[in-house]
């Protein structure tokens, strides 16, 4: 695609490697002023790495960057800021005990208006900074109180502070790394409105994403990366989801998730009045009650940090519980309580409970151990006498690699060297091989590419058809609505509603996530 204008930023032949991994290979990218560009690609396709090179976090191994036609060297975030480039990272970099204004002026040497030092030895002029922050907010429609402490803010407010911080430094090219991952649908809409205002003002916006409907909603153009290589740029209006997916994945992909009808539904896990506090006494789960059935996928929706982790860990025997009941219901209706039992004791009760935790390498697997040793995590106690049995897990690792098409140099490769999707296949594969009667999954497809995600959905559906009670904590509402039979919505540790996955719509669930749907108890 040709454009007669000179691009604001041109990246040419950019290559970046990390050890054996080539994150970007010969990438060319043009970014024009006054446009919103989506950078689309599956996870691991090198979107973030590419933008990190533009914002001075990494330095390319090869290639050149031009701004307005002139070659530039960006070897630090300061260089990037000097060139008017600012990046809003996925993980916020704010000081919790500071106010919005204090965070925004942090690290700025000079007041650009007066030339007076505001860092260093001269006086901090918070008043003046606050005034400028308010001006920026009014201009683009942000809602930030300069005097509010960061620890009092919601995730979306923190994100706003990050954006204002970048604008305050005078950036006119903004890069946002998966900004909607932590937002509700309503908050996303608000963010998009602000981004559109910025475009009207002549700013350039690059938004990194792997969600197609967002690309369609916000961007003028979409640049697609696949496996570190640049595939092409399209005008958003002239393309569609199927074409973008095919370019992103490199082949034809079907875009709907199966949802087999549940059969032989019986209650399996019964949770009543579950209340859990964190170590520092914060209420994480507040009087949560529900039943998970066999042969059914129970989706759990909610903004991140609303008690999803604690809920799953409570059932898995990893959480100290303040009050409430968790019962396992046998086929014949007899109940046994899981409260106070650790994972070994739960297994001893004859309950095959599999758990795919959110933190794959920090909890589900050991990154530095190889595939076979990771299979051993569940089976090492079965060895003879004092010794571990290494043959069975080794064979199991081979089976999982075969069945789930795990891409790995060998079974002796440490799992941290595998890509995110393959790590997840190893973990899910191990948990499913235990022939569970209950399967708990937390963000099972986070960070996975489309292929791997569909493999995981298929595996979950297979388990459901086997009669397993599946509890699926998800973050993408579209997926939850397509996969789950019922959806339980958590808001601030409380159940704000349980809806039918087949009839509920996205807006309804979105409202329940922010509790605007009122207090429905399911």
């Amino acid at each position, binding site marked *: 695609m040709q454009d007669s204008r000179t691009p604001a930023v041109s990246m040419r032949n950019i290559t970046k*490697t*990390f*050890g*054996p991994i080539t994150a970007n290979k010969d990438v060319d990218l043009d970014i024009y002023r006054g446009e919103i560009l989506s950078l689309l690609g599956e996870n691991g396709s090198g979107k973030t790495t590419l933008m990190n090179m533009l914002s001075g976090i990494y*330095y390319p*191994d*090869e290639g*050149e960057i031009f701004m307005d036609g002139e*070659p530039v*060297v960006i*070897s630090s975030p300061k260089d990037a800021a000097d060139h008017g480039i600012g990046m809003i990272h996925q993980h916020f970099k704010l000081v919790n005990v500071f106010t919005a204004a204090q965070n925004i002026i942090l690290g700025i040497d000079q007041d650009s208006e007066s030339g007076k030092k505001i860092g260093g030895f001269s006086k901090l002029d918070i008043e003046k900074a606050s005034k400028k922050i308010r001006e920026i907010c009014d201009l683009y429609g942000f809602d930030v109180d300069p005097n509010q402490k960061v620890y009092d803010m919601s995730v979306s407010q923190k994100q706003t502070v990050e954006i204002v911080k970048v604008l305050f430094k005078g950036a006119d090219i903004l890069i946002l790394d998966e900004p909607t991952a932590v937002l509700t649908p309503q908050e996303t809409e608000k963010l998009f409105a602000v981004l559109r205002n910025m475009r009207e003002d002549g700013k350039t916006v690059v938004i990194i994403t792997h969600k197609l409907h967002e690309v369609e909603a916000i961007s003028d153009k979409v640049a697609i990366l696949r496996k570190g290589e640049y595939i092409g740029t399209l005008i958003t209006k002239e393309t569609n989801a199927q074409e973008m997916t095919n370019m992103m994945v490199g082949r034809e992909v079907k875009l709907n998730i199966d949802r087999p009808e549940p059969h032989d539904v019986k209650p399996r896990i019964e949770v009543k009045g579950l209340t859990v506090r964190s170590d520092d006494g914060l209420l994480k789960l507040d009087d949560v009650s529900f039943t998970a059935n066999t042969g059914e996928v129970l989706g759990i929706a909610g903004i991140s940090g609303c008690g999803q982790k604690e809920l799953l860990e409570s059932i*898995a*025997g*990893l959480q100290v519980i303040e009050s409430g009941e968790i019962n396992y219901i046998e086929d014949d209706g007899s109940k046994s309580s899981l409260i106070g039992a*650790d*994972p*070994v*004791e739960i*297994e001893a009760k004859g309950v095959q409970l599999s*758990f795919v*935790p959110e*933190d794959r*390498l*920090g*909890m*589900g*697997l*050991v*990154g*530095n*151990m190889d595939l076979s*040793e990771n299979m*051993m*995590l*569940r089976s*090492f*106690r079965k*060895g003879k006498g*004092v*010794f*571990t049995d*290494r043959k069975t897990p080794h064979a199991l690792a081979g089976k999982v690699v075969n069945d789930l098409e795990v891409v790995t140099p060998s079974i002796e490769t440490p799992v941290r*060297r595998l890509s995110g999707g393959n790590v997840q296949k190893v973990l899910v594969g191990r948990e499913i091989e235990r022939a569970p009667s209950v399967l708990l999954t937390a963000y099972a497809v986070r960070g996975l590419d489309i292929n791997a995600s569909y493999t995981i959905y298929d595996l979950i559906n297979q388990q459901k058809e086997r009669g397993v009670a599946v509890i699926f904590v998800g973050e993408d509402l579209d997926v939850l609505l397509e996969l789950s039979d019922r959806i339980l919505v958590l808001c601030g540790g409380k159940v704000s509603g349980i809806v039918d996955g087949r009839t509920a719509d996205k807006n309804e669930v979105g409202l329940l996530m922010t509790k605007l749907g009122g207090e429905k108890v399911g």
Partner: protein
Amino acid sequence: MDKKVKEPLIHITKRKMIPKKQEWAIRLGGILAALIFCAIITSVATHLNPFAVYAKMFEGSFGTERKLWALLKELGTLLLISVALAPAFKMKFWNLGGGGQVMAGVLAATAVMITMTDKLPNGAIILLSCLAALAAGALWAFIPAFCRAKWNTNETLFTLMMNYVATQIVAYYIIIWEHPKGSGKIGVINQTTHIGWLPQLGGNPYMLIVLVSIVVTIFMYIYLKYSKHGYELAVVGESENTARYVGINVGKVIIRTLILCGLICGLTGWLLVAGTDHTMTTTLEGGKGFLGVMVAWLAHFNPIGMILSGFLLCFMAKGGSEISMAFGLNRSYGDILTGIILFFVIGSEFFINYQIHFRKSHRKEAADV
């Protein structure tokens, strides 16, 4: 392109996985570079022929049978302590208290040998001193492990301080048991009766400790690699969350592992008192608790590898003291050489993991394309 674009002079990238052979080639290259560097330093600083100096170092370690056995005794002791530290380190429990745990064993063994001599037969004293030393070593390791498991205290400082406590208690009892009176020393315990002394295997006083160290090293290798305990402690070391997730009781594993660690240190203390030195001084472990940390790290916590790294350090120590005597050099000269060699050995690990690109070669590469 050579006008205003300033590239950074060097940049560092992580290497791809490299074959074991190449890894060892880099390590060997590191040692070779260290020897060349030491040779240059030696000729500049001392005006001696570096090859003569190196030859003397070999002589100091292997020159006579007596010197060889002295080296083996040092290596055996060091190996025992390093191997004792291995499981704790593999669990990422930074036990810097190996020395203190040895001294606890030394004190317990000495106490039995001195106070029980007239009350029990020789065999019973040997047995009792062994059990007492094992218990004392285990106790000295148990205390910090318990506090870490229970209250998450910092084990590094805790074990470090326990060293000083042990040394001070030993100093206290040296005064109580001093012999002859007023000497401020204990002297050789049961010098005439040899009560509580361990038998000499093959007529050699050091044979026993060398054999024990080999057995313990092999035991530890198998324990870490093939046992359930070894697997559990590796999981705890890598991720306590994963350990909890599969139902491993983290506190129990920490305490159990440290008790094992303390038992081996206590055993070492017993072998020093009853087997080789037959006395108690505040410096009996001779800094090997710390040296063992280095041995264990250099070998990446692999007990078999510790034989190599332990040997390197013992060889440098013996060789170093030999050259300082033979050439009338300052005693520290040996330490300087040891330091240089270690620096290169540890430095070669960096080159195993990372690759350095210089600006010049980088640009040439780009031009080639």
